[in-house]
């Protein structure tokens, strides 16, 4: 029974990908039709979508479309991959800007958070060993060790608390649904 449900889930998930792609097309076409102010982005979306689909289906050797050297692979390596990496890389710049403007030691909790961030950020680089050497910090007090303590003890304790909290929340929500207390998913109050 479990295997059957797993198979059906995979089938539905595979169909959902198509549904998502068609929905993207519908929304983008709607934007163009209604002359939305963002319609130019919609045009780019549709052209990109059609380009990769056509390259994958007709110009990449059929079944072997993901092989190195195919048109699909060329688009993946030279267009999709750099664009996707660029989006993620921009985070570094925004994080730096945001931390300069918003990361303030306004109260005790914020100061503790700030100090922990300093230790972890420095401790995760080779610079920490150099810095520990400059200040003649003993073995147990070296910045990299303090960083490991924060990650292995304080972080683990916090993560476990979050996991347990989520699990209890899931159980209580499931019970509410099973017992008929929670009916919002049916459209009621």
């Amino acid at each position, binding site marked *: 029974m*479990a*295997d059957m*449900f*797993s*198979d059906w*889930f*995979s089938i539905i*998930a*595979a169909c*959902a*990908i198509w549904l998502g792609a068609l929905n993207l097309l519908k929304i983008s076409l709607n934007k163009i039709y209604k002359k939305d102010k963002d319609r130019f982005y919609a045009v780019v979306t549709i052209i990109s979508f059609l380009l990769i689909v056509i390259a994958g289906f007709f110009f990449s050797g059929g*079944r*072997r479309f*993901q*092989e*190195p*050297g195919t048109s699909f*692979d060329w688009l*993946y*390596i030279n267009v*999709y*991959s*750099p664009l*996707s*990496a660029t*989006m*993620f*890389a921009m985070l*570094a*710049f925004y*994080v*730096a*800007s945001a*931390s*300069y*403007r918003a*990361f*303030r*030691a306004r109260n005790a909790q914020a100061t503790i958070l*700030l100090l922990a*961030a*300093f230790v972890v*950020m*420095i401790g*995760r*680089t*080779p*610079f920490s*060993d150099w810095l520990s050497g400059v200040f003649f910090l003993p073995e147990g007090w070296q910045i*990299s060790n303090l960083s*490991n303590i924060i*990650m*292995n003890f304080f*972080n*683990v304790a916090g*993560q*476990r608390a979050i*996991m347990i909290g989520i699990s209890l929340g899931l159980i209580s929500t499931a019970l509410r649904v099973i017992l008929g207390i929670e009916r919002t998913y049916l459209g009621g109050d």
Partner: protein
Amino acid sequence: MQRIFEKLLAIDRRIIFLVIFLALSIPIFLGIKINIKVTDEVQIFYDAISSLPSGSRIMVACDYDPGSEPELQPMAESGFRYFIQNNLRFVIIGLWPQGPMQANKALVSINEAKDEFIVENGDTLYFGTDLIVVGPDTARYGIDFVNLGFQAGNELVIQRMGSSIKAAFASDLRLGKPIEEFDIMRGLNQLSDFDFIFNLSAGYPGTVEWVQFAVDRFHVACGAGNTAVQAPQVYPYLDSGQLSGLMGGMKGAAELEKVVGHKAKATMFMVSQTAAHIFVILFIVIGNIAYFATRGKSGRKG
């Protein structure tokens, strides 16, 4: 002095962007050598893979996309290189659609025989896809490694593989051949037949799901490489022993490069990351000094 602090607080963010850009890019060209200290998390992972006997079969689950490439691709490359050098066979899958293509990219990258091919029994075998050369060692598609591609279904794919790998992945990615026709897949019927799982994860589905299903339910040892953002969420599994090693972010990738004895991209980029971290900390310190220096005055004004 007060005016300087006020100006500092109102600094154009493009200046911050420029400083970070320079901090990230200049160290790449300086060729600075740094000493990477291997943490226990990475040592545990290395101990786990180095204790596998020759010929062991490892599942490599690539659950990431190009956005996480700077952190996870060096781990994939180091892992594949180590597996090939130590005669460990590997089966690639992905719960993310881009994962298997990232694996292909890593294999092409580590292959040392570029644009070469051989003809064997009438078949043309290309280096980089059919054959991967790493130093004196070679891995052959279908025998030493195979790429089964992506399967939709998230953690339910793992669950399905627990009872039947073929039910989740009927054919391979490259040739579309039924998986039982590959030499490497002989005797691999379910997840527990694997000797080890190497998961590279950037989010959901990823390491958490592999631990919860593959490790806890089907009792397969699993080591993981995560993005620096995701790694803190996975630490509880390392502490409990459910995870056989963890590499977090570029630092983890650089540590892996050190333990496997091949310093590459991650080690090089760690210099940039170090510089960026230092500048971010400096920004925070300057921002706080300026904030507290100007707060008193603005408070009196108000």
